[in-house]
């Protein structure tokens, strides 16, 4: 049933693969030269060998090609380099995965606005799970305290900090909605952001040039930019990482909610859904007619935010 969309995804990748061999050869030559150069530096022993190893790895990382065009070996190699760089630069032992999406899976999310009490456990869990910048207080998930009468988060207060829930107010959460027709994907000049076959919209941080056109294009404020180098205290770094997800970012690149790709591809709930104490968040496979998310879509009155823009988000709101 969804083979058509899979084919579309494939065709997109094939279209990107024009001149693949010449580009691949060019980049291969560069990275061979890079590897040889860094190896010779290490052998030659000029400077501290750890420092030159680090520089050699960074050199190879700089010249790597677009993630979607890498072979499985190249993907594994870049993951290994990044794990080693994390060890050299920060002294941490990271397990980075590049797990591919499961077939016949399309992630969907539902948010119960009758149940959310504004506790913001989801916001905090996401910050910890995804290694978000503590200095800039980046938060992928935002909760709005709403007065009754409007179902529009733009009318709500996103900066509340008092005892919740307040009588006669309700709470709505927003985050990246992983649109099927995402304006951010259309806007990116380098194809650094794309939609994976399992529906999540991801960013390859190493490919992003930081033009912020996607941030301007998103109607839901789903994306964040690293204005400075993100800071996470070493003991709080989540070491279970995914290349497309919560690995450590650098200044000058975009980032966003990835439905916790490092968790969901292992079958776990995303951190926000797992942390919610009131059970307001439902997550699952939209292509499984027996899933909880499908039950919600079938039996509850659901709506999506700014539906009239045609972005086809995969995040619904419902009420009891």
């Amino acid at each position, binding site marked *: 049933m969804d083979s058509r969309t899979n084919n*579309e995804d494939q065709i997109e990748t094939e279209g990107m693969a024009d001149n693949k061999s010449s580009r691949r050869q060019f980049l291969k030559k560069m990275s061979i030269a890079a590897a040889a150069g860094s190896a010779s530096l290490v052998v030659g022993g000029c400077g501290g060998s750890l420092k030159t190893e680090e520089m050699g790895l960074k050199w190879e990382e700089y010249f790597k090609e677009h993630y979607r065009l890498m072979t499985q070996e190249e993907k594994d190699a870049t993951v290994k380099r990044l794990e080693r760089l994390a060890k050299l630069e920060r002294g941490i032992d990271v397990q980075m995965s590049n797990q591919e999406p499961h077939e016949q899976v399309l992630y969907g999310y539902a948010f119960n606005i009758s149940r959310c009490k504004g*506790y913001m456990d989801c916001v905090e869990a996401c910050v910890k799970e995804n290694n978000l910048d503590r200095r800039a207080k980046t938060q992928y998930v935002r909760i709005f305290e709403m007065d009754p009468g409007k179902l529009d988060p733009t009318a709500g207060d996103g900066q509340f900090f008092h005892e919740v829930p307040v009588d006669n107010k309700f709470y709505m959460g927003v985050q990246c909605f992983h649109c099927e027709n995402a304006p951010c994907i259309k806007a990116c000049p380098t194809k650094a952001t794309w939609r994976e076959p399992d529906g999540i919209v991801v960013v390859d941080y190493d490919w992003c040039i930081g033009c912020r056109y996607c941030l301007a294009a998103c109607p839901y404020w789903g994306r964040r930019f690293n204005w400075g180098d993100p800071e996470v205290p070493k003991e709080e770094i989540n070491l279970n990482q995914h290349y497309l997800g919560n690995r450590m970012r650098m200044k000058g690149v975009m980032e966003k909610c990835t439905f916790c790709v490092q968790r969901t591809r292992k079958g776990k709930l995303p951190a926000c859904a797992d942390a919610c104490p009131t059970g307001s968040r439902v997550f699952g496979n939209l292509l499984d007619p027996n*899933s909880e*998310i499908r039950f919600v879509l079938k039996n509850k009155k659901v709506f999506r935010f700014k539906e009239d823009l045609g972005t086809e988000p995969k995040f619904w709101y419902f009420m*009891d």
Partner: protein
Amino acid sequence: MALAAVVLVDQSAVASGAAGAESVTDRINHATEPYDSMRVSTAYELSVKTVQSKEQYQGGDFKVLARKDQISRFRCSVCHNDKPVLIQNGALFTHGDVKLNHGLGNNQLTCNECHSMGNRDFLVDKEGQKIDFDHSYQLCGKCHFRQKRDWLGGAHGKREAYWAGERVVRNCTSCHNPHSPAFATKMPATYSLPLDE
């Protein structure tokens, strides 16, 4: 050539609007074959105690978190029996720590509306049928039948840890204190910055 460029802009705009034409709703409605989420092989390591639910959901059987291992003084019949019992810390043992606030206004529930007077190891419904503590949803659902229907389907309550693999859900009392079910008022876990700092 520049004119052609301008024309191409229009064409590409139209084309990219038409691409991705199948909407999410259509795609979902076409997906009618059940998905075997057991194939997500990593989704099974749960160390909590579960029981098989006595009712089914749209995908068949599922498991519920056990409750009896969470109740510190179960088995109740250890004290509640025919034999006299010597009691130290009487206030504590006579359930003085239970604050009962289940119901609105003057329509509060009393203890024996849920707990069986005959056999304290079980709950009881209005017809006198005994209900196991591990399957408390059968009792709660007698009044809260809408929530129970939603809980069975997945729109109420919470699935434990995984979206794939075997379905393990929390029981009613995992989240709601049965004696005082409403969620407490408390400070949020964090706050969001004023953004023009």
